[in-house]
């Protein structure tokens, strides 16, 4: 706790002088790399890295019974694990509220955007495909939401759908790509000493009083939003963050 306060003070000190410890400006991402098909056993996979932050995403496809209220639609399930390998603060055990929030915010964007056409996941009566997107955070150096979006989206774009034959799914035969209709990416803003910046490191997150994330599915539409942390945001701040999120969109999409 006391060490955190020291780190927090350092982050705040830099930001109050309009600079950051790694020299970036407030609206600049660290280096981003996305590597697809990194886990060949999975139907789709990717490793997304933003600076030192590393998130794996794997897509598995299974047979499922559709939900009663949507009998002709497939299912998507997003889960995340904040593994203890990623940060000394993460503990093994049941999912924490941070990990549930992360998975649900990613889920919301993927679902709302219509990136996956659920009707196309329908096979026959009472049989649909279920797309499981699992996020494994392995190195937490901040900005997990943006990085998780990149990993999930890239993994979905690399997904090959197993062949369905005689009521069974053949996992070793994957003839078709999973059709993805749009690119969903997310930019998160942190409020530190009253200033807004993107792509915060974990040390900067310690100093943050609040975060707002905006996911977009094209150049003018948002498909998920989430505010976290105790800070309040004015409508003006929200307005400018929405503009800035769309400005960052091109860069993020180019990495997918």
């Amino acid at each position: 706790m006391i060490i955190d306060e020291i780190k927090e003070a350092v982050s705040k000190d830099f930001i109050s002088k309009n600079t950051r410890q790694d020299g970036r400006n407030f609206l600049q991402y660290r280096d981003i790399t996305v590597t697809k098909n990194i886990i060949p056993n999975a139907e789709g996979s990717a490793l997304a890295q933003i600076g030192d932050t590393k998130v794996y995403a794997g897509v598995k496809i299974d047979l499922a019974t559709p939900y009663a209220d949507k009998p002709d639609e497939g299912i998507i399930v997003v889960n995340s694990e904040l593994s203890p390998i990623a940060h000394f603060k993460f503990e093994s055990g049941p999912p924490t509220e941070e990990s549930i929030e992360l998975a649900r915010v990613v889920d919301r964007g993927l679902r709302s955007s219509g990136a996956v056409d659920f009707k196309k996941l329908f096979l026959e009566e009472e049989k649909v495909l279920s797309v499981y997107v699992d996020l494994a955070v392995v190195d937490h150096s901040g900005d997990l939401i943006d990085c998780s979006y990149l990993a999930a989206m890239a993994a979905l774009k690399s997904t090959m759908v197993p062949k369905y034959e005689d009521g069974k799914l053949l996992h070793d035969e994957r003839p078709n790509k999973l059709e993805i209709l749009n690119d969903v990416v997310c930019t998160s803003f942190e409020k530190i000493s009253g200033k807004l910046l993107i792509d915060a490191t974990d040390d900067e997150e310690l100093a943050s009083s609040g975060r707002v994330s905006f996911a977009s599915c094209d150049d003018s539409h948002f498909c998920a939003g989430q505010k976290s942390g105790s800070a309040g945001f004015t409508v003006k701040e929200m307005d400018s963050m929405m503009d800035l999120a769309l400005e960052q969109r091109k860069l993020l999409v180019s990495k997918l």
Partner: protein
Amino acid sequence: MKITKDQLLVNGKRNDGRSPDDLRSFKVTAGVLKKAKGSAMVEWGKNKVLVGIYGPGEVFPKHLTNYTKALVNVRYSMAPFCGAEEHGRSGPNRRAIEIGKVAKHVFENIILTRDFPRTQIDIYIEILQSDGGTRVAGITAASVALADAGIPCKDLVQGVSAGKVNDTVLVDLDKWEDNLGEGDCPVVVSLRSNEILLFQLDEVWTKQQVLQGFEKIFNAAKVLRQVQEESLKENYKEG
């Protein structure tokens, strides 16, 4: 009665006869529980939400103790009988845990937590009947319950959801508008600081639509605040 998507907005009227900016009937009663330090019951449309406040008290588990401020916990829980559909599971699910987290952030903002170091304040939100907008109803009720408990707060806060049907922005979505509409954007505001304390967005929106939603939400919050204030004053009437 089942409502279909094309019945959500007909000639500018919503399925229950409201216009896009109208709120459902809203009533709040402060101090409804004996044991809790503060409490409130909200009846908002068909929603019935009960909130109880305990604390400030000792932190549990002890190692989470913060020596500079009070911790805030929010438990949002839907009763298994609250929906018009099938029997629900008891206890918080993943959705409820996420709602508890973002609701907690609202109260970390407005409670003067530095007045009570080394303590914990518990806010229990029980959804007894749900009909769309339960998280904002719960937070609006919780703000009244906190005031009723005498826990120092910067403001009373109000939550309202905005949504969309045929690209028309609506406030205060009911269950049908939430399930069948084109968007759900629950927001909690503090009118004193003019700030947004909770914001979530689902489905596809343009920036202009989001901003329109905010404007309508701030207007609706003024109406809710009036009712909140009256409910708290009601308990301290002369005679």
